[in-house]
């Protein structure tokens, strides 16, 4: 364990690269999922009596340009000066808001719909529209806040599997562990030491990445300091154990890297980090609930956003995965030990 920590401190570039990876994933992937901001948005409100412009401006999603002439507004839309145009009509009997888009970019259309729905249903009390929205557990956080716990769980997987896999396979192929594992209880000691060291190292990298990215991107880290530490450690331990099992099975760095990368991306997509699990097919929901990243993501949401989650259940599932993986790794290595 001491050897591992010394080795880690001797490789500052590796440490820096790991933190950079964390920052990039949390910041850039988070940005992509959280959606576009400051979209130029045209507003034609001939009565000038709705405060829609103010409310739209308040959300960083839109940058509102007010028009007094509808034809000029449509021209600007056609020339891509604005991404959409809202025509607000308030009369004695009802209010209507017509949204006109250029129509060639479904991704932008979705972003506009999401942003507008939030503004029109929650903020604009001066427009009487037949759509309202309400929440059972109203939370004061943005989409960015919501995706970051999922990305933290994904980072746990990336950092833990990368650290444990590379170091384990290098040590194994360089035969540095041979003397240690051949002594009584040596294998158990190596497994425990390696898993704990990687858990600790990767956790420190994740915390640093989260702190730096939180300052850069301004998402909610929450006040539950010990909760974040606990969930990080349990998640790291779980993914370190899984990484160790894969390292024992795959044996070479090249195969290991490829497998872990492909698995990581698949896990991210299936575990509700980008698309909510509830919105996926039954098969995908089942897969998500069988795999650990979903539970890690849920536990992170609980501690970072203080949303209602089944925290104990999530932690138990992660621990079960950790124990199972560690047991498989132990059995596999026990066989190899016998060969040695």
């Amino acid at each position, binding site marked *: 364990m001491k050897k591992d920590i010394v080795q880690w401190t001797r490789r500052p570039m590796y440490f820096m690269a790991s933190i950079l990876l964390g920052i990039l994933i949390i910041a850039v992937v988070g940005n992509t999922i959280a959606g576009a901001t400051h979209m130029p948005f045209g507003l034609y409100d*001939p*009565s*000038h*009596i709705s405060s829609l412009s103010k409310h739209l401006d308040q959300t960083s999603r839109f940058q509102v340009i007010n028009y*007094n002439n509808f034809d000029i507004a449509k021209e600007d839309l056609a020339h891509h000066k604005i991404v959409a145009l809202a025509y607000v009509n*308030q*009369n*004695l*009997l*009802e*209010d209507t808001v017509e949204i006109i888009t250029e129509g060639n970019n479904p991704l932008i259309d979705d972003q506009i719909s999401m942003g507008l729905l939030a503004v029109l249903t929650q903020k604009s*009390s*001066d427009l*009487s529209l037949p759509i309202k929205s309400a929440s059972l557990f109203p939370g004061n956080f943005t989409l960015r806040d919501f995706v970051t716990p999922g990305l933290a769980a994904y980072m746990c997987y990336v950092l833990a599997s990368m650290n444990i896999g590379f170091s384990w396979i290098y040590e194994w192929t360089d035969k540095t562990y041979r003397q240690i594992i051949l002594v009584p209880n040596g294998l158990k000691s190596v497994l425990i030491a390696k898993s704990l060291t990687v858990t600790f190292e990767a956790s420190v990298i994740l915390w640093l990445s989260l702190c730096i990215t939180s300052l850069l991107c301004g998402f909610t880290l929450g006040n539950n300091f010990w909760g974040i530490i606990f969930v990080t450690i349990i998640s790291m331990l779980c993914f370190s154990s899984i990484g160790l099992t894969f390292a024992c099975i795959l044996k070479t760095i090249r195969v290991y890297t490829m497998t872990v990368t492909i698995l990581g991306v698949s896990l991210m997509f299936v575990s509700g980090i980008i698309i909510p699990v509830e919105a996926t097919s039954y098969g995908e929901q089942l897969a998500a609930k069988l795999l650990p990243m979903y539970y890690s993501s849920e536990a992170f949401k609980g501690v970072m956003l203080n949303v209602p989650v089944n925290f104990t259940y999530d932690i138990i599932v992660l621990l079960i995965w950790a124990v199972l993986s560690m047991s498989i790794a132990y059995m596999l290595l026990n066989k190899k030990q016998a060969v040695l």
Partner: protein
Amino acid sequence: MFKQLLRSFILLILLFNCNIIPVLAFTTGKEVVDHLVTVFSMWNGNQLQTKLRIETARYIAYQLMAKESIGSINWEKLNNNQKYKYTANFEKMIESKFYPRWHKLFSKGKLVINNEIKVDDEIYVKSILKLNNESDEIIWKLKNIDGELKLISLALGEKDLMNKLIHLIKKRYDKLGYDKFIKWLDKSNSNNAETE
């Protein structure tokens, strides 16, 4: 013009400074419409004052509108107490749903009253609401009730206030019945009041 200004001035003083509001007897539909628009324009748009409610209720035929909204057959089945309670709730609904909107549009826009046509016992007043670059034609429908001209509906293009209210109320009333409907209306009014 002078007469109109003078009347608005007197009304403003009466509405906000005195407790006694005189009954202004209007003989034409134009005068009633003009008076209602003045009242809505002068209101501050925030909390509904008793004076404003009394003044508008005097020139809006709430009981007739309430009757039409649920249909004559349903109306005749109600006793006097129920009719009174329903009309009061109906009035509250109009106040919370439309008064702030009417205040906003009439205070910021300019209503030009054109002509009025009498058809049987009903009077149709044609007007144009000008608001910035937009102009909307509004037709006010009034009826002589107990010697007083009162508003019974208003139409904007193909949309009509009374039709809108019937569409909102009739089907629900038929399904829920009086008691449950009153509860729903009461709850709906409270929600609207909170939103405002």
